[in-house]
């Protein structure tokens, strides 16, 4: 604190003054969501419906519309997203994160059951035609965002059916086909034409498409499996994870035998292991690090264990041993984790002499994926992954997004498709690139969780365990009920945005807050700065951190 002189001459230090200000900040969930989903906003519509004159049905409809602004397939993502948003949710340490993913799923199902239509952004129609190569989530997201902005869109896929990895890799017990079909159809219904069984770079050249269309989006994915490169890997009885999952989903006859080893620790490995259980095999999953290092979600690991999948941690296959054409055994090398290196990572290294033979009838290798296309075939200049700028731009008129930029999750692919569409639209219309909203992120300390009543996280309903393996198509997790969803939305603490708790209004001594006539989430009171007496009380009271100190320096 600096000493100054008052006009009376005596030294007095500058007093503590905090003038308040209303300022929206980005909540942690949104900051962590790969698609920057405006989670707080759609939850807020439901939680604050009463004060804004909406019935619960109306609120669900409206929340769904807000949700699909960023994500046109919430019923799908609501089932398969590993929901990193929940890890950061401010509520996590109080009484459990808000079930954001389950809410997304609920709203997704709600939208389907009410046959809600995806909201158009414009009534204008533009002449420039847009081609989208691939029909995975990145492509669908791009196509959706362009179609709703008024562009004619044509999609191409080498496969018969749209959906990419969502269709071919994710097992039915996690994502029923009917759900995916319905959400894809709803996107295609926005006047998008689909050309199936066309492989660009093979059946048609990229250049030909570029001549025909004003804008191209590449959503090629990464559909080729990686292998381990160990002796015996090439040959019958060894299959790649995604290859197996695709066959399993297509209900092809697969001869796995009685004992299957699945190699890998990611979601593909778990999906493969659990699918193999559904094909009736005994399954052991072999992973080179420990359980806590597994990239797969903990819930998935627990469920796999529940279904009878066995785990061999700190083990890696060294050699696959066949008897004639049949896999008989896999030689397993014991591993240990090194001391943490400079980055704090512990790497697996072999323990000399620790070798063991495990019996196996087949081996599923699910270690990673890589591009399934060759840049050269497309006339592109790239070694492996595509290299684009932040907006997904490769060059004028050519954008990309999704796994062809490197492996990620569906939510990230949707985000990349959406951002590419925003830039492509700006480019086509000669607009300045839309500025990225740069809201300040709220800090955990400024959300005062003790001001919120305790409300335990709602339990996602699940099918009874006895039924899990009865039919490969049986879904395990179920959707929150109508009432549960409204309860769960009310748990959102609206981090960084006013939710009408009314503390500031009630306690500001000079009555500096006035209620607005037309309220909506985030907009309930206006503050009169000239009345503020600088006590800072409202800032400390505001549970969500929306009110903050005005910078009075200078």
């Amino acid at each position, binding site marked *: *604190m600096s*000493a100054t002189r*008052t*006009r*009376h*001459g*005596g*030294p*007095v*230090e*500058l*007093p*503590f003054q905090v003038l308040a200000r209303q300022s929206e900040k980005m909540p942690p969930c949104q900051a962590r969501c790969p698609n920057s989903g405006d989670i707080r906003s759609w939850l807020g519509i439901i939680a604050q419906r*009463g*004060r804004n004159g909406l019935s619960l049905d109306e609120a669900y409809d409206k929340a769904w519309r807000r949700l699909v602004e960023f994500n046109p397939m919430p019923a799908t993502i609501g089932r398969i997203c590993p929901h990193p948003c929940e890890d950061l949710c401010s509520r996590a340490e109080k009484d459990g994160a808000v079930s954001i993913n389950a809410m997304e799923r609920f709203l997704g199902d709600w939208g389907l059951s009410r046959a809600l239509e995806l909201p158009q952004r414009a009534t204008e129609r533009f002449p420039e035609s847009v081609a989208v190569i691939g029909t995975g989530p990145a492509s669908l997201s791009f196509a959706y965002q362009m179609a709703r902005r008024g562009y004619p869109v044509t999609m191409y896929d080498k496969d018969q059916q749209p959906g990419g990895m969502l269709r071919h890799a994710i097992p039915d017990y996690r994502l029923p086909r009917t759900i995916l079909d319905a959400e894809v159809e709803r996107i295609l219904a926005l006047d998008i034409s689909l050309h199936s069984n066309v492989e660009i770079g093979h059946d048609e050249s990229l250049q030909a498409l570029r001549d025909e269309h004003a804008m191209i989006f590449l959503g090629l994915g990464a559909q080729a499996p990686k292998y381990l490169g160990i002796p015996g890997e090439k040959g019958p009885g060894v299959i790649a994870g995604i290859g197996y999952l695709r066959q399993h989903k297509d209900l092809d006859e697969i001869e796995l035998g009685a004992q299957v080893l699945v190699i890998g620790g990611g979601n593909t490995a778990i999906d493969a292991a659990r699918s193999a259980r559904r094909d009736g095999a005994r399954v052991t999953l072999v992973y080179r690090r420990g359980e806590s290092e597994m990239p797969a979600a903990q819930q998935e690991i627990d469920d796999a264990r529940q279904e009878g999948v066995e785990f061999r941690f700190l083990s890696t296959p060294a050699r696959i041993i066949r008897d004639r054409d049949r896999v008989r055994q896999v030689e397993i090398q014991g591993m240990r984790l090194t001391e943490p290196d400079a980055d704090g990572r512990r790497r697996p290294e072999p323990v000399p002499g620790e070798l063991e033979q495990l019996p196996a009838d087949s081996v599923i290798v699910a270690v990673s994926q890589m591009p399934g296309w060759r840049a050269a075939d497309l006339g592109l200049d790239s070694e492996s992954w595509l290299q684009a700028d932040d907006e997904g731009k490769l060059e004028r008129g050519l954008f990309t997004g999704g796994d062809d930029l490197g492996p990620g999750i569906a939510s990230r692919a949707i985000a990349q498709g959406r951002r590419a569409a925003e830039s492509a639209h700006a480019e086509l219309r000669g607009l300045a690139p839309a500025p990225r909203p740069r809201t300040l992120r709220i800090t955990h300390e400024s959300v005062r969780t*003790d*001001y919120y*009543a305790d409300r335990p996280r709602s339990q996602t309903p699940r099918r009874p365990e006895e039924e899990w393996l009865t039919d490969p198509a049986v879904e395990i997790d179920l959707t929150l009920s109508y009432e549960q969803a409204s309860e769960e939305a009310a748990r959102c603490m609206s981090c960084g945005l006013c939710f*009408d*708790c*009314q*503390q500031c*209004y*009630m*306690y500001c*001594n*000079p*009555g500096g807050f006035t209620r607005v006539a037309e309220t909506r989430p985030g907009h309930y009171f206006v503050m009169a700065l000239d009345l503020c*007496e*600088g*006590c*800072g*009380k409202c800032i*400390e*009271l505001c549970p969500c951190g929306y009110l903050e100190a005005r910078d009075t320096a200078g």
Partner: protein
Amino acid sequence: MVEGLELLTGKAPKPHKGEAMALEDGSRIAVIGAGPAGSMFSHFFLSMAETVGLSVNVDIFEPRRFCHRGPAGCNHCGGIVSESLVQRLATEGLSLPDCVVQRGIESYTLHTDVGDVEIATPLQEKRIAAIYRGNGPRSSEPVDTQSFDGYLLDLARNRGARVIPRLVTDVRRNEDLMTVHCADQFSDSYELVVVATGINSRLMEMLENETAEFARPARTKTFICEFHLGRDVIRETFGPSMHVFLLDIPRLEFAALIPKGDYVTLCLLGDDIDENLIDTFFSSPEVRDRFPGGVIPGHVCHCYPRINIRAATPVYGDRLVLIGDSGTTRLFKDGIGAAYRTSKAAAKTAVFHGVSAEDFKNYYAPLCRRIDNDNRVGKLVFTFASLVQKSRFARRGILNMAANEQQQVDGPRRMSGVLWDLFSGSASYTDVFLRTLHPAYVGTLLWNLVAANLPRGAGRIGRDAERGDDHVRH
């Protein structure tokens, strides 16, 4: 017909003949606000109900967290628990625990431009408590202290009251019950609603807007701030004494520095205290001299709480009663003591008589009237005090008389007693006023007026801070 809060409004349907509007086993009470009034009501209600074997549920609505530091956890006041309240609480078996008492006060030091005088309790005993309503000033270090309001709320909770951490936004009559509505859309119905929100919240205004016949208490703006000086400096410079200033600053009725643990609380009361007045106050030498090196440090926490200057009318209705600041309180002094008295009277009425407007009129309103009448006398006393503040001549006389009394071991302490009771709020204004009419008081004062204003000062008054002996500062 009984007057009273009809509303919120309208009257409750008349109970059947011969059936009183009274609480029974299983009845429910909502107490809105857990300041001293709300918590003490709940505590005393539940203890009295227990003695008569009545089992009633008490829900206290209070969104504030008294464990928070700074203004958010605080009900804003000077934090003086008066001598009379300390004694009455002790008599009730509620001795304030050490962690609640930031400092025991045993004297008042009066500062004027003509000198200072320290007025001590006759027994040299710490009978006044300096407390924090919340958990201390903003950015204070966590130490083993407890909020006074938090302590009282715990008493109520331990008696069986349920604390509901919700903000009440409306109270309405609904058939024969009262319904309480909260900001988060929660609502519930009760047989009795006790409004104890104080006046530093907007609820009273909201109720007034809804109810034609109800007038909320009139208020004026005061100022409070906290200075961090550290325990040792405070012990040396302030001691266990509350420092009161008699300065000739228009609109300033009462100014005091109250030492607490590591902080000193400044409290300015008067008519619409504003920044100009605060500036004038800070720049007067009597104030600056109180601080080490004559420098007033920056404060760490401040607010402009409102204080009552006129009671609400009416303070009751069927199944509805307003207690503490929400109803009526003492002018400028001992607000917590008034909260104790009104809350207990309301609790007694509800337990032993009933909860109709008629019951509150007969058994609760008389106390409120007594307080209001005394406040009228209080206004007179403050007018007189401000005359003294304006006159250097009178200041000398009063200081002289008090200083002389303080030097005598025995003998009447008329001026000291009057000043003590006036500053500490230990006696009613009526009592203080009557004593100033005592012929002996008047005579001695006259003599002192003359003596103190003789050239070269015949009276030796005031304690010089540097030399520590008594002399007159001219």
